[in-house]
């Protein structure tokens, strides 16, 4: 156990808020200063999050960097934060992508820069809070709070149908998580008036109740992931969001759903898992195939990538519910991978959009000639997303499929087929964007500038680092995952025994 008294996580949570307040106090006209402060805050948060990785004890089960303080003592609700192998990399992903997102909006955002940056920073805190909360109410607070800045980002700085997209995003996710609140309250009362996750894990909840609670939690997470058929907010939000919004949305926000399953739904309600796992797995499979097919039919690059997210998140959910160490660890890693790869794709689409103000595939073609650096980045990122070995996506997908194959061959086979489809739609996108004769409209297209390269470069480095040295990550992920899966499956075994 890390016995540092240094409140690293709290500091990490507070830093972006402080940055946001500072940004809000700066004079409106000093946009460069505003951006600088925002970026500096993000970098500081990134740096601050690094010790989480380096001081994380891989062999230790349970949470590390824990902090517990009374929050609402009257109701025994505490401010309890901590990380384990499941959340560690999501925290790091958040700090990294936040910095990337802020840097990527340097020139893309020209109106109300101050508000924009402040919202980005608030968003960062909300997301970090989701991943480090170990109290159910604290989690719910961050969970819901993360909606607000994103909805505003989409609705204020988005595309033409931005208001529809923002409202859809907000209402979908809020309605989805409404029942989770009731379930949390029920859980809190059954657990003897505590909402502390570690304490709740050892509380006895009757199986019939677990089923209902699981359903309520699962619905909230399913909307966020999103699972078919609850996914339609995602393309709308992605297409309309500003680039940075898409990066955060795909990179981090969707992970909150998958993370919710791993952190809450599965360990808290193991008795309900056998009942729901097949259905959720099937929805995930539908998502994999369906998302890929719909992506294939898209004319808009962003919505293509958005639907690819539906497919990719399907893999993660599939792995989660396979409940083998391989599949779940793979799912955790794949969350990071998807964040990096899809974030990268959105970033690149944003680079194009900033130049040409169109995202339609038919408006491009052959631009690898005019923008070789862009083209190379795009191909690398697309290949990472397709799951090319040696890069990040492969390790995640492979371990997920391997772990799934162990428990259900048919699921694994269908999901593996999904990889074929993934190659299809992404290569179509590459083909129509980069290859073919140069579309005359793009003759003045300029290549990526130094800032844009600097934004992309860390992502690409991580594509390869994760792909080649995944054990740097797995060694920290595995203990938490193994504890979790063995808990869930053991409880399940006990339940099955007692049924007989």
């Amino acid at each position, binding site marked *: 156990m890390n016995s540092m008294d240094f409140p690293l996580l709290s500091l990490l949570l507070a830093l972006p808020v402080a940055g946001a307040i500072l940004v809000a106090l700066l004079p409106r006209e000093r946009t460069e200063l505003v951006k600088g402060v925002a970026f500096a805050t993000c970098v500081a948060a990134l740096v601050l999050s690094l010790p989480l990785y380096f001081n994380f004890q891989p062999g230790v089960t349970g949470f590390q960097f824990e902090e517990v303080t009374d929050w609402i003592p009257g109701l025994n609700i505490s401010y309890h934060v901590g990380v384990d192998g499941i959340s560690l990399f999501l925290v790091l992903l958040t700090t990294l992508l936040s910095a990337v997102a802020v840097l990527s909006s340097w020139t893309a955002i020209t109106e109300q820069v101050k508000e924009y940056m402040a919202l980005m920073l608030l968003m960062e805190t909300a997301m970090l809070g989701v991943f480090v909360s170990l109290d159910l109410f604290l989690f719910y607070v961050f969970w819901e709070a993360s909606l607000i800045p994103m909805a505003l980002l989409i609705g204020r700085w988005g595309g033409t149908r931005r208001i529809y997209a923002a409202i859809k995003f907000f209402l979908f996710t809020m309605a989805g998580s409404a029942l989770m609140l009731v379930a949390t309250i029920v859980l809190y009362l059954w657990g003897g008036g505590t909402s502390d996750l570690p304490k709740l894990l050892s509380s006895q909840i009757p199986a019939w109740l677990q089923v209902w609670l699981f359903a309520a939690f699962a619905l909230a997470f399913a909307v966020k992931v999103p699972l078919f058929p609850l996914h339609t907010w995602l393309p709308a939000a992605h297409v309309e969001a500003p680039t940075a919004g898409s990066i955060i949305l795909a990179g981090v926000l969707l992970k909150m759903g998958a993370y919710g399953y791993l952190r809450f739904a599965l360990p808290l309600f193991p008795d309900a898992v056998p009942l729901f796992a097949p259905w959720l797995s099937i929805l995930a499979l539908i998502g994999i195939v369906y998302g890929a097919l719909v992506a294939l039919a898209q004319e808009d690059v962003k919505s293509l990538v958005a639907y690819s997210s539906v497919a990719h998140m399907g893999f993660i959910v599939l792995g989660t519910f396979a409940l083998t*160490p391989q599949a779940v660890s793979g799912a955790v890693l794949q969350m990071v991978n998807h964040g990096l790869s899809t974030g990268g794709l959105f970033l690149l689409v944003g680079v194009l959009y900033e130049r040409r103000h169109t995202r339609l595939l038919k408006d491009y073609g052959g631009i690898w000639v005019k923008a070789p650096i862009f083209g190379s980045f795009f191909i690398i990122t697309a290949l990472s997303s397709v799951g090319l070995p040696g890069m990040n996506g492969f390790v995640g997908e492979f371990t997920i499929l*391997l772990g799934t194959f162990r428990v259900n061959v048919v699921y694994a086979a269908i999901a593996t087929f999904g990889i074929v489809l993934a190659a299809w739609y992404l290569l*179509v996108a590459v083909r129509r964007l980069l290859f073919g004769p140069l579309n005359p409209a793009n003759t003045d297209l300029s290549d990526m500038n130094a800032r844009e390269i600097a934004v992309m470069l860390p992502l690409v480095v991580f594509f390869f680092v994760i792909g080649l040295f995944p*054990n740097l990550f797995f060694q920290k992920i595995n203990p938490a995952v193994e504890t979790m899966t063995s808990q869930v499956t053991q409880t399940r075994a006990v339940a099955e025994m007692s049924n007989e």
Partner: protein
Amino acid sequence: MIIQSIWLAIAFPLAGLLFNGLLGRRLGRGVVGIVGPGTVALAFVVGLFAGLDLLALPAQDRAIVVTLWNWISVGSFRAGMSLLADPLSVLMVLVVTGVGFLIHVYSIGYMEHEEDRLYARFFTFLNLFIVSMLILVLADNYLLMYVGWELVGVCSYLLIGFWFRRGDDPQDPVRLKDGELVPVPANLNPADSGKKAFIVNRVGDFGFALGVFLIWTTFGTLNFADVFGAAPEIASGTVTVITLLLFVGAVGKSAQLPLYVWLPDAMAGPTPVSALIHAATMVTAGVYMVARSHALYALAPTTSLVVALVGVITALYAATIALVQTDLKRVLAYSTISQLGYMFLAVGVGAYASGMFHLTTHAFFKALLFLAAGSVMHALGDVIDIRRMGGLRQKMPRTYWTFVIGALALAGFPLTSGFFSKDEILAKAFEFSPILWALGLLTALLTGFYTFRALFVAFWGSARDQELFDHAHESPGVMTWPLILLAGLALFGGILGLPQILGVDHALAGWLHPAFADLEGEGAEAIHHGLSAGLEWGLLGLSSVIALLGIGLAYWFYVANPGWPADLAVRFKSVFKLLVNKYYVDDLYDLLFVDPGKALARFCAQGIDNAAIDGIIDGGARLIVQGGAWLGRLQTGFIRHYALAMFLGVIVVVAYFFLR
């Protein structure tokens, strides 16, 4: 011992790749042209020394595992970044780097007209391919092999699409004697060809991946040695399924029926790429994989039979299509498919060493043929239609003569490398089943015919397109010297595996013996099969005759009686059209998979996503708002109404309490 540092063979091209990829554009083509081939040459040297190291070891110890780092470990799953250097993999290293080096050198000349950026990019991709292929062949477990397997696919994708700006390549129709035009399907543009290659390969990889999963769930490991060691204890049904799944991958990668369709289109790439990837090395990965997994395949006779059948049918099938192709590279492409079929026939009947032998000789002569074809294209400004060539032997003697040697080897002309390797396979097939042998022999006849048809049409006779002809010139030395070296290999490569009836050792089988030692009756004694010497001589003779017959027929049709082919085409018009259109398989696939896939995608996007799901959601939202508006209409503004409603409310509340 350098074999402990076998990773250097990968590291050198990797260094070259990084160097050329990051700096190549700035440093100019001179540096690129040295670094690219140079690093591959270094890799070759590493391979050579590794081979010598192996020889120095006792036969049973000739398998060195070098673990670089622990790659993935999750739960009970472990996969290392580990390389396996044994005779089989070192042979592949030598073929890949050797032929690869020559093709690199050739490319210096071939790509000279490209702008600096593309020139550097080309060598970067080529080096990337060498790296990937070496990972594939040096892997010591199925996962790492799968890594290489996919990576070569990407290189193939990138290199086929190298000239991504080009559009579709329309083909002149064939004019029959009665003036009727038989349209020839257009060639896909490079970008689409690359995409097609990648996706079709992924279909094969789908099977391969499932095979890998099944291996792990069955054996609990992906390590070759452990898997093969435990294989005999596993239920044969499982082994059959595993091998079949792996073979699906091989079918995709090695362009066998029914997944061969990408390879002809892959000819849209630059010719060195066709030579290196789509003839000499990558496409043979499937054969290598089966040979590598021989311990499993030997336990799965059903699969082996499937492999042999797919091989021989593909061989014959592709050969028939090659008969009528007018595109020189496509003739060679179909011949590659056909020759790969031979190799699968070999490994299918259990003659793994023979398969590897043919793989090696094929690498020599097919690389040679492609490079020579490339030399022609280089001379004619990328014209590849043999109907526009003719008489080139005067203009390009070195290209011509090397092409002749390649063609002879391909056709199985006695004493060339291809003759020995093909004959060995046929003999093995005969031993297994005369039917397979007969089909193989028929293919050999066709091979001789179509190879020399192309040769005669392109190089003999008189110029058909005078302007082109005048423009033609011999290629520079940097291109012709690799041709000459490869011609030497194609001519004399047979000495690696002379039949034992000639009274000499089968060198290659001897070399590979440690790798296949676990198989009874394989290895050095393998060629000493159950056939009597007389029968063996007879088969040898028959092969020679068939090869000569094929060549002779081609001469008869295209030199002696140039009008006959057209007559035949008219007489068997339906057959001719069928062949020209490649049995309509591409159209069939479009009809069965591509178009329905696209239609389904559109239906999902518009029908389900937009109409159904969003319709329900948006409609539901509208309904709720409408309900609100309806409630608002209750709010009439009249006090009397409000008072009445309140009064009724009071009555209801009171009644509830009263009647409860």
